[in-house]
């Protein structure tokens, strides 16, 4: 069975440009998470979806970040415009049930903003 799939794996952009990340969770997993991981740090939750509903977006910087999960399966995370401080690894995870439940992480997208 395929795990969580993310693309692209790497992205380099100049500041003020937009960028989007895509995530395909494990089949049947209702809960989807987006995390940001800075170098040497643990992941920090940005947003959690239960099916297509965003149930926790308190840590999402809403002035420049947006996310969607229109059909309750795939999800996209967008940054517009990107800033230098947005350089990080963006991780997607999914779980079968709502928390607390085992989360399965994708490989992440490493974003570099120049």
């Amino acid at each position, binding site marked *: 069975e395929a795990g969580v799939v993310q693309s692209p794996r790497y992205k380099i952009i100049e500041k003020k440009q937009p960028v989007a990340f895509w995530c395909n969770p494990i089949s049947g997993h209702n809960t989807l998470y987006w995390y940001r991981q800075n170098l040497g740090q*643990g*992941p920090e939750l940005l947003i959690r979806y239960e099916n297509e509903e965003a149930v926790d977006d308190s840590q999402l910087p809403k002035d420049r970040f947006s996310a969607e999960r229109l059909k309750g399966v795939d999800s996209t995370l967008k940054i517009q415009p990107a800033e230098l401080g947005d350089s990080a690894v963006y991780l997607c995870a999914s779980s079968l049930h709502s928390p607390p439940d*085992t989360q399965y992480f994708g490989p992440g997208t490493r974003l570099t903003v120049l």
Partner: protein
Amino acid sequence: GESVGLHLPTLSVQEGDNSIINCAYSNSASDYFIWYKQESGKGPQFIIDIRSNMDKRQGQRVTVLLNKTVKHLSLQIAATQPGDSAVYFCAETIGDDKIIFGKGTRLHILP
């Protein structure tokens, strides 16, 4: 505020020896704890979890110990192998709230 941290940023262990990775948490209300392993270029991988009504849980070559009195969590890896080289994160959560990760400990395996 809530925080989860690790005592050591790096740990070097001889191959074949046992590894002990420690973690301190600050929120006494946390009731679920997880250990993750993250290899270079990959996302975190679930290792083992424990709920606050337990003080010990064993898996394959791994044991997690929870001491609620001093708010301390540890991960023990038996007979450490080269494939155990990674960064290990402890994480805590309360009920259905978000998981809070610590900063991580990098485990080096010495030949």
